[in-house]
Every structure is written in C-alpha cells, then in structure tokens.
C-alpha cells in the first residue's frame, strides 16, 4: 500500500508545529535508554539534540531519494530509492544491510504466497 502525500503542513506564518517537525521525545529517549546501561541517565538536552538530528537525517535522506524519483519521472518513493540515497550520502554502512533486509522480506512474502496457493 502506498501513501498519498499532501502539501506542507505550515500555517500562514510558515511556522511549523513542533510535532510535525520532530519525532516524539519520549520515543527517542526510550530508544536511547535501550542502548545505555541500567544505571545511566540521559539529559533533556541530549534527547532534544538527538531529536533534532534525527529529523534532519530523515529530511536529508528523503530529499535525495525524492530527487532520484523526480529525475526518473516516478511518483512513488520506494525502499530501493531510500537505500540508494543512503549510499549516495555516505551512509554506506546502512544501505547494504537495508537492501539485504528488504530482499529477505520480499523472499519471505513470496514464500508465504506460494504456501497459500
């Protein structure tokens, strides 16, 4: 299933609501906590810094994937576009595992389909 994209969510003053611009800080904190030892703490500033950076990361990768789709005159951004964008932007360490994961999912899906038939 695909998701149709609406226009930008900014108001007249072009100021975007915090919840549209950033990922929830509770989720960011929870994910960070999973990596840290039990007794460790995370400052509010650390969570907010990570929150900002993750939003920029998403924007950055999406922008590059979008540019590829525009050049190839396609309307749908797919997983391969994201992997390509990651590799292009120097996140090569992410791109290959993501491609492998994507291929595995496709294989699993087709296996399940065959089992149903």
């Amino acid at each position, binding site marked *: 299933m695909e998701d149709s*994209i609406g226009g930008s969510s900014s108001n007249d003053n072009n*100021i975007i609501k915090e919840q549209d611009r950033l990922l929830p800080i509770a989720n960011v904190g*929870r994910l960070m906590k999973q990596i840290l030892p039990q007794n460790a703490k995370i400052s509010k500033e650390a969570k907010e810094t990570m929150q900002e950076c993750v939003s920029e990361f998403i924007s950055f990768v999406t922008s590059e994937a979008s540019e590829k789709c525009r050049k190839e005159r396609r309307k749908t951004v797919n997983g391969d576009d994201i992997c390509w964008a990651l590799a292009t932007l120097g996140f090569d360490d992410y791109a290959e595992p993501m491609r492998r994961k994507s291929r595995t999912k496709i294989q699993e899906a087709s296996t399940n389909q065959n089992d149903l038939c």
Partner: protein
Amino acid sequence: MAGVREQDQYMPIANVIRIMRRILPAHAKISDDAKETIQECVSEYISFITAEANERCQREQRKTVTAEDVLWAMEKLGFDNYAHPLSLYLHRYRKTEGEPASARRASASASPSMQMHPRTHPHSHPPNYSHHGFGMFDFDPSSQGFYRDDASSSGSGGFVASFDPYANIKRDPL
C-alpha cells in the same frame, strides 16, 4: 533484544511519514518498504550515536549522557558537519531558555536558513530542502553573536567560537 516491543524499537511510523511528507512534492507517494526502511534506519542511527556517547561517559566515569556527548559522538562517527550547526543550535537553545516563548518564536522566524549536510559521496550534491520549514539550522548564527569568544559562554562555547564557516573559501592575503 528478545522481548523488546515494536513500539520501543522503532519511531512511530505516522511521525516519520509526516517529516518525509514535508520534503516530498505534493503529488508524491511513499511505498510501505520505503517507510519501513527509513524507520529502521532511524533506530540504527540513534543506537549508533548513543552507543558511542555512552562509551565516552563510561571512560569519564559519568552516569549522565549530555548533549555534548551526543555532539562528540557525531563528530567521532564522521558526522562532522552535523556537529557544528548542532553546537550552534545548542548554544542558542541555552541562551533562549530564559526568554519568554513569544520572544523565542520571533527570533526563530526572523532569521534565514542555515543547513548542514553530513559527509557526502564525492559525486553527490547536497540536496536542497530549504523549503522544509523552520528546523534546527534555520537561524543566522552571526546575528546571535555566536562567533564571539565570550568568556561567559557555557558548554561547547569554545568549540563554537573556533568554528569559521568561511574557512574553506578564504585566501591568504597577497
């Protein structure tokens, strides 16, 4: 981790899509695997940086991970160009913490965009997403006085003051 719930492992998909939507043109669509790929990447990204920041804390025998640790981890892991604007952001954030919310909004909306890009592939061009609204880099650091070497500046002040955004285009005088 075996017993980790999906909502603890990944960012909410609706929020991820919302950020992606602001970048994409109005007619564009996002496939499910694109959403999942980004979602997984974000989790990896957070884990990657947090683990490095934690290592620093353990070396220095501290229990609290601070914003400076996160910035340090980014720099160490090759996100050098993230770290500089982020430190400026942090500096401004600390400065404006005491201000009323209305004054904060006014200063944010009055200033031009400043973007960062991670280390890019030699053949790639940094994408232009200046249309994506008021983000962390949408302010003019020179107008806020961040390039002054204030003795009173806290945290990463020295790091910020030594950052010259025009270093790569400056020439030696003849």
